């Protein structure tokens, strides 16, 4: 998985590493299918996977429910927090 910690996303914050693409491909799901399941556009899924857009808590939760995981695991929150603190 491509990790770009010091690049900035659409929100102006650091791009967050996430497992959306990894989990989606392992479930043999297309971006369009995932988009339909969580009721967003496929463009949003593309941005999420690239880390360009950070989802709302509800969207992150919906995606984590689809992949039967937690938001913490989906968005590698511990690692991202560690990286954020290291970059300061």
């Amino acid at each position: 998985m491509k990790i770009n910690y010091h690049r900035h996303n659409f929100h102006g914050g650091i791009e967050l590493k996430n497992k959306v693409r990894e989990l989606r491909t392992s479930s043999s799901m297309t971006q369009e299918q995932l988009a339909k399941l969580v009721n967003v556009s496929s463009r949003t899924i593309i941005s999420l996977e690239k880390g360009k857009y950070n989802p709302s808590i509800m969207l992150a939760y919906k995606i984590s429910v689809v992949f039967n995981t937690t938001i913490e695991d989906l968005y590698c929150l511990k690692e991202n927090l560690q990286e954020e603190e290291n970059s300061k």
Partner: protein
Amino acid sequence: MKKVYNKKGFRSGLWFLLLATIGAMVTMLRLNDLDIMGIIKSSLMYLMCFFIGITHLYRSLNSKRSEEDERCDDERSELVGLKAGSKSFTICFIISLILNVFCILLYAFKRIEAILYIYIGFGIMSSVMFITIITTTLYYDKKC
């Protein structure tokens, strides 16, 4: 009666149809005053409004299309809209400030009175924008 699946789309469809109808009626009433180019221009514009209105109405009454529209109008597109609006406002504000300075400098060198009127116009625009920024910031600071 058909069910409305997308109220927002239905409302905008009605607005476009209303605009097209009123525009077409006004054009018809002023047919003798307008030249051929004016008639063609307004007819094309109202025809476009009519088609946009019909498309919005059709999509809002169709469950599949409404679902598609709802998915396209998600949180990311809302954020894009907010960011684009905010950025364009900031750019307009900066441009009006630059034009203000440009007008002052031009007046200082050329001493043409007409430049002063342009300066006043841009000055009012910049002031209104500045007041808007302060009031909206205060409003959303209290609200959030």
